[in-house]
């Protein structure tokens, strides 16, 4: 691999030109034939969910021939830092933002500034109100937990004793998910809710809480956990207590070890809350908007249930996943 100086200089100039065009008002990038730049925001670099979003978005960026810049706060989910990042990127003026707020209220003023600067914004994963956006791409937390609960209750023949493990009490998603659970419970009079306790969306606290609950309830027919990390912790706790096989555990998200546990028959099912697909579709939506195509105001992912039947076939890592079809998802919405 040899690069002549001339080629190198030409490359540098092209990159410089791209950067310069990137700084011009948006929508024109495609028209001018240069590659548009899209700033893809994530909440942190620690949680694998955001990595999955990033991987999905990168696939779309590559397919569609756009530059993608990942923007993440170094302090996970830090409001103040994301506010600063948004301000920095308004100055850099990319062609579009694919944005997820670390807090759906606190970031409203920052995104309004981006609106004033004329940067088109695709929201993904968590929606925001009082801002102008091209579209929202995401999954409805309430519907996800409603569907997985209903799936479980049907499998139980509509009756039995169920424990719910909540997420972080303050988290909006946790509240929505629990609402979905409660809606499903109302439809099944034979389902008795023994307890609903917080597991903080994390494995260790959830397993400890569940171990405490096992002391109180000798018979637990099923557990609905507000995410998979907790569900796997509960599966472990059941196993340690010699109660595996007596309790059906369901979660939400579709993380790799939950899919593994389902394939192994240790966990019952989960709902695939795919970060990969959300990231991919958010990037697609942003590029299609820049191309001048019509994008619907809201793009909601369908609920896909992973159970023993299909767990063996589902891709575990975001890299292995195949990209969702835009027409199929948008056609459904």
């Amino acid at each position: 691999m040899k690069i002549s100086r001339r080629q190198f200089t030409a490359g540098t100039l092209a990159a410089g030109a791209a950067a310069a065009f990137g700084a011009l008002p948006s929508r024109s990038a495609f028209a001018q034939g240069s590659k548009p730049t899209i700033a893809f925001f994530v909440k942190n670099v620690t949680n694998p969910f955001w990595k999955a979003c990033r991987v999905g978005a990168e696939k779309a960026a590559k397919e569609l021939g756009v530059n993608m810049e990942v923007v993440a706060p170094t302090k996970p989910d830090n409001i103040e830092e994301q506010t600063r990042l948004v301000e920095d990127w308004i100055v850099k003026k990319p062609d579009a933002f694919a944005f997820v707020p670390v807090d759906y209220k606190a970031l409203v003023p920052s995104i309004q500034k981006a609106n004033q600067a004329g940067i088109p914004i695709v929201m993904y994963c968590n929606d925001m109100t009082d801002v102008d956006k091209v579209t929202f791409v995401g999954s409805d937390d309430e519907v996800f937990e409603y569907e997985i609960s209903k799936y479980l209750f049907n499998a139980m023949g509509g009756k039995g004793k169920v424990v719910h493990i909540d997420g972080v009490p303050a988290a909006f998603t946790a509240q929505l998910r629990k609402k979905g659970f409660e809606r499903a419970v109302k439809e099944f009079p034979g389902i008795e809710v023994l307890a609903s306790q917080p597991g903080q969306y994390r494995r260790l606290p959830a397993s400890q809480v569940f171990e405490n609950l096992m002391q109180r309830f000798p018979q637990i027919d099923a557990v609905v956990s507000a995410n998979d990390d907790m569900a796997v912790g509960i599966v472990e706790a059941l196993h340690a207590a010699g109660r595996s096989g007596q309790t059906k555990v369901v979660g939400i998200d579709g993380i790799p070890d939950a899919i593994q546990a389902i394939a192994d028959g240790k966990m019952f099912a989960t709902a695939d809350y795919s970060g990969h697909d959300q990231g991919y579709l958010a990037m697609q939506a942003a590029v299609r908007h820049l191309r001048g195509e019509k994008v619907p105001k809201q793009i909601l992912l369908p609920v896909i249930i992973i159970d023993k039947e299909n767990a063996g076939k589902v891709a575990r890592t975001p890299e292995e996943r195949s990209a969702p079809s835009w027409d199929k998802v948008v056609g459904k919405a």
Partner: protein
Amino acid sequence: MTMQAVRPSARPMKPDLLGLSPDRLFVVVSRLVALTLIVVTLSILSPYFLTWSNLINVARHAAPLFLLSAGLTLVVLTGGIDLSVGSVLGLAACLAASLITGGSLVLGIAAALGAGLACGIINGVLVAYAGVPSFIATYGMLWIANGLAYVFMQGEVIYGLPAEFRVIGAGFVGPIPVPVLIMVVTLIALHVLSHRTPLGRGIYAIGGSPVAARLSGMPVQRRLMFVYAVSGLMASFAALVVVARTNAADVSLGEEQLLPALAAVCLGGTSLFGGVGGVAGTAVGALILALVLNGMNLLGIGTFWQAGVLGFIILASVFADQIVGGRIGRAGGTTQ
């Protein structure tokens, strides 16, 4: 009144029962008052509480927190603080999980403990030799350890550890969970170390009065190095137990561990000003925190209420201890 300027622990010691001088024994006993009150209350409120399996369950929950707080206790006894314990736990957990799932059990354990020890030694050098306040030195280390873990993990989660490793977190010896055995052994070892050796007495003396300790010819810097090194090492040791327990590791594992660890130390009667308290108290503190969660789960306290209830019980337990313990203290004629 001039006597009050001298902390009890700085006085010459007459070790008796369990190697404790009377006033140190008093600190432990008075903490047991709070623990006993919680146990009695929960026994009355819930029929599921006072069973062998539930008590074992609570001890098992307290064990990882105790391991994390045990080294921290020694630091606090010298009048310092180690804010990096949670992050060091996270870093060590990631290293261990990654190398162990990569096939090398020994290397994984060694790397985790080595990283913890190294972080602790750096903290120690900064505090003891460079004169950096412990709050700042260990706050810096908090971010360094976090940062290293981020870079190392790249947002991945590692799961599926081998059964022979998982024994230390999830195994049982007879009816006793392995983490509980580890907790007891660690407690005894650190207790003996801090009460029966010149090194341990030095730790108390430094916390009581660093100037007096130095003037008495004690190698203050070396002892400070030692406590920070132990704190880092214990944090990485706790990481091994947690990873073995949960069967997974990600960078945020240590995120919410610092404050509960500090709370266990303080609930255990160790003064943040140094010189007073000990690891036995910290074990009680960790048990109190585990008991409160257990009690709330058994009683079915609503999700939104739990944080508030936890705070209330922590305050109430300290308050009960002050009232009851204060009386016993005066009746016994010990200085408090």
